[in-house]
């Protein structure tokens, strides 16, 4: 696919979509409502179609989560549908993350010998391949090997085979391989030839940082050997290689935190770092995610006719759906309002 892409159209459209997302001010009120009230509320906004389809079978949080999932897939395909040319190429490259996620789900399911229906329930067809494709893969294979063979022809077959040959058929290795392949492909295949591609790569590099930080936090917290950690870090982010390795090579979580505190690499997480020991990683990860989203927002203002407004919308939409799910699930499982407020990502 060639062509510059319909930036004016797509950007105006995503901006209008962005303006129709649930505003920040509505969240305190949503937190005060009950689950069925939230269902009604979202039924009066962008979720009306799904709510009306599933509303008659309403049984509570599950129904809402179904509504949210459907809406997300619809929103993503909608965006892909009106993007053209180079823009579409970039956006679809980004959305292939959902394919990665789905491959991971299928592999895990097969490893666990889960029944196909259960695996399919966990699939979110928001990437390039649709529900039918995944059903075919899930039903048509019984082992991990089968799945890999069935994925022949997709972008990820090569990476999976390479992982198998080099490191053996270990699930976690496959998963790491897939994630790294996703970012590698984006950085390799998209050359910063045009302004749009440059801004896109900039965005992706920021996201790679986010993923790397998450990996660092989790592995350091669990005391994984530095050598192993380094193998899991995705190259190409904005953080320098030396800095990353230095963080990975620290001795234990305490030292890691110490270094992090001193280097001020990420001022956004300063406050949260102090609470990690007591409150878990949620706060830090949230802060990182917020910083990432804020960066996209800022960048999309600087480049109003680029791929960034589209990325920004996708990020925001995903965040909104996550927020709604947190509120609904949290309420259904009896978390108190204050906890829920801490969990959601309101910008």
């Amino acid at each position, binding site marked *: 696919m060639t062509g510059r892409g319909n930036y004016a159209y797509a950007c105006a459209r995503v901006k209008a979509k962005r303006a129709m997302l649930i505003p920040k*001010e509505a969240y*305190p*009120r949503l*937190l*005060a*409502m*009950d*689950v*069925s*009230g939230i*269902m*009604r509320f979202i*039924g009066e906004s962008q979720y009306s179609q799904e*709510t*009306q*389809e*599933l*509303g*008659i*079978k*309403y049984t509570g949080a599950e129904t809402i989560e179904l509504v949210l999932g459907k809406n997300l897939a619809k929103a993503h395909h909608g965006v892909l549908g009106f993007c053209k040319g180079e823009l579409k190429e970039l956006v679809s490259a980004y959305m292939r993350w959902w394919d990665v996620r789905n491959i991971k789900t299928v592999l895990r399911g097969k490893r666990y010998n889960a029944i196909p229906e259960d695996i399919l329930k966990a699939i979110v067809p928001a990437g390039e391949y649709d529900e039918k494709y995944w059903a075919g893969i899930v039903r048509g294979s019984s082992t991990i090997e089968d799945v890999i063979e069935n994925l022949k022809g997709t972008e990820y077959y090569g990476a999976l085979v390479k992982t198998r040959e080099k490191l053996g058929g270990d699930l976690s290795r496959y998963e790491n391989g897939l994630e790294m392949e996703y970012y590698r492909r984006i950085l390799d295949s998209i050359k910063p030839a045009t302004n749009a591609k440059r801004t896109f790569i900039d965005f992706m590099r920021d996201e790679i940082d986010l993923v790397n930080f998450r990996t660092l936090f989790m592995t350091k917290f669990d005391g994984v050997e530095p050598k192993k950690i380094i193998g899991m870090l995705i190259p190409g982010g904005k953080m320098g290689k030396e800095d990353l390795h230095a963080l990975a090579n620290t001795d234990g979580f305490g030292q890691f935190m110490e270094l992090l505190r001193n280097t001020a690499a990420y001022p956004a997480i300063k406050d949260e770092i102090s609470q990690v020991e007591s409150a878990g990683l949620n706060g830090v990860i949230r802060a990182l995610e917020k910083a990432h989203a804020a960066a996209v927002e800022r960048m999309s203002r600087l480049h109003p006719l680029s791929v960034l407004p589209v990325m920004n919308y996708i990020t925001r939409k995903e965040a909104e759906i996550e927020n709604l799910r947190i509120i609904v699930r949290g309420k259904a499982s009896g978390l108190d309002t204050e906890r829920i407020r801490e969990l959601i990502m309101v910008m």
Partner: protein
Amino acid sequence: MFKPKEMGRAVIIGPKPMMKQTVDLLHKMEVAHILDFVPLEGETEIWIGAPENSSASLNEKLVKMRSGAKLIGLEDWAAPGIEKLSIDEVEKNLDMKIRTVELNILSASEAKSRIEEQLKRIEERICELRPFGGIGIPLENCRGYDGVSVFAGRVSDIKKLEQAISKLTDEYELFSAHGEKSQIALFVANNHRETAAKLLSECGYEEMRVPDGSGIPSRLIAEQESHKLGLLEKEDNAKKSIAELRKRHAQFILASEEYLSAEVQKAEAPVRFATTEHSFIIDCWIPRAKLGEIRSALETATDMEVCLEEIHISHEDEPPVLLDNPKAVKPFEFLLDAYSTPSYYEIDPSIILSFVFPLFFGFMIGDVGYGLLMIASGIAAMRLFGKDESMKSIGWCLMVSGIFASLFGVLLFGDMFGLTFQSGAHSVEGEVVYTWSSILGMDIPIKSLIHKTEASGVTQLLVISVIAGYVHIFIGLLFGIINEWKHDKKHAFGKAALMMILTGLFIFMMNMAGGILARWLESFKGSAPWVFDKLAPALSAGLTIGGMAVPYSTLALSLAGTALLVSSIGLIGLIEVLEISGHLVSYTRLAAIGVAKGAMAMAFNTLGIGMIASGNIAIGIFGVVVLVAMQMLVFVLGSMSSGIQAIRLQYVEFFMKFYKGGGTKFKPFGYERKYTIEKSGKAD
């Protein structure tokens, strides 16, 4: 009239047990615009109220009813004369009826979607099979060989493929069907696999998956098709039963949806309030005239336990806007809202809009025929979509504009469907010019004062446009001065300066068009000798710069205006001079669109009438068809572009002089009932 209704800010405070009563009362009175409470960071004493306990089940029912309404297609169903249900009746058997309706709809819609699912699967299967339809070998023969490779798909050049393959080996078999692109199934021994693949790609090969299953594809397709027919019939039945459900339950669903919506609104109202442990606080805007009435109503209903207090409005407050216009002007408010609701503190230009918009619209159309058509379609829109408020407004605007168009058509242009009633004064010798008089063979005494398609007419139109523009912009600037006066005096002076420059520019332009003006004003000459003998010459006296006559008055006004402008808002103001000249020229679109439309209509008329008058019956009939179709085209295109341009002149040229917008619409807490009637006992 030029100001929205005066608002008062009220705080209603009461003990929590009285909350429900207060909410009920406010909901019924529909006068309070409630401000959502925003909790302060770190505040622990005052927080957002919790919804009433009943809200969970109300919401659940509402979600179900809305979903049900959607599933049986009640939404886009024009409800013909549905009787209103009383709320008592809705309340009485709500739970039971909801359950039955829910079950009925669920089973019907599930049955329908099952059938649709099957249909989709069949369609997909047919889609999958169709490319192989022409190939007469069973599907099971297309796969599962060890020694043979199968290629199935399409090629663009089958002859080339056949030749190339036969040259390569004779261990092959090629099945093909001819279509738009040839479908093939090629069987080659494995050792030739690679070369065959290369050959294929040279021939424009496009691989297609061999569908699952066994049997001859064409037979399979036929089988599926017959299956499909049966399903289509079933689908039809399912649709019918859904239509049946719709008919049976429409009244109840609509009424209960409305009842539940209103109840949910009430039950969830506390979420918008601030509450402390024992009391609630409602912050709202109420039209000042109604404050006293509401206070006493609240006090009597709650035995003085709830009190309403008016608080002082500071200038940072942005009261909601409830426009206050006469009934005939109200429909034009939607044009204002489409741009932006005016702010509370500025002039509401609805009245000007309601006059100038149809004036411009009508001027551009300027044709009795189209004018009458517009009136008719306006009335039709109001009649047909009576329930839809915005369609009603559009209809009204269209009708008023149509009246203006007809007036201009008769009085100024003497035009009907692009044909003048009488021929113009400057008709070229030998050219066939159709007029209503010449067609009907009688003399219709309606003159065209301005002839759109003649050069002199266009000049006259341009002059009129500029005059209209001057007046319009002048009013705009005047409003601007009034708006800014309270706000920032400097800006007000800037607007006055622009006014001066604009006037100078206008005098300059009018001076250029002196001949035309003189002709128009000839008859008034006697009545106001001072104006014509002293003022006009004084204004137009001037010098010639680069072949253009520049009056002294223009120079004086421009210089004075520029000086004032620069001194009040600085050099940046000079940009506005450019802008304002551009805007004045911009009004020439009034002439341009009118002329373009007129010329288009005339061209089609000449063509059509020429065909009718040709004498040949066939051509004549064809001519009638062409004429009608073209007239419709001119009407639709003309009214669309005229309408848009008329709006644009308001939004850009007019509004930019004074209008800020950004106000919030006054939305009273309450619910407009369409399908239910209030309880009789409570209607006091």
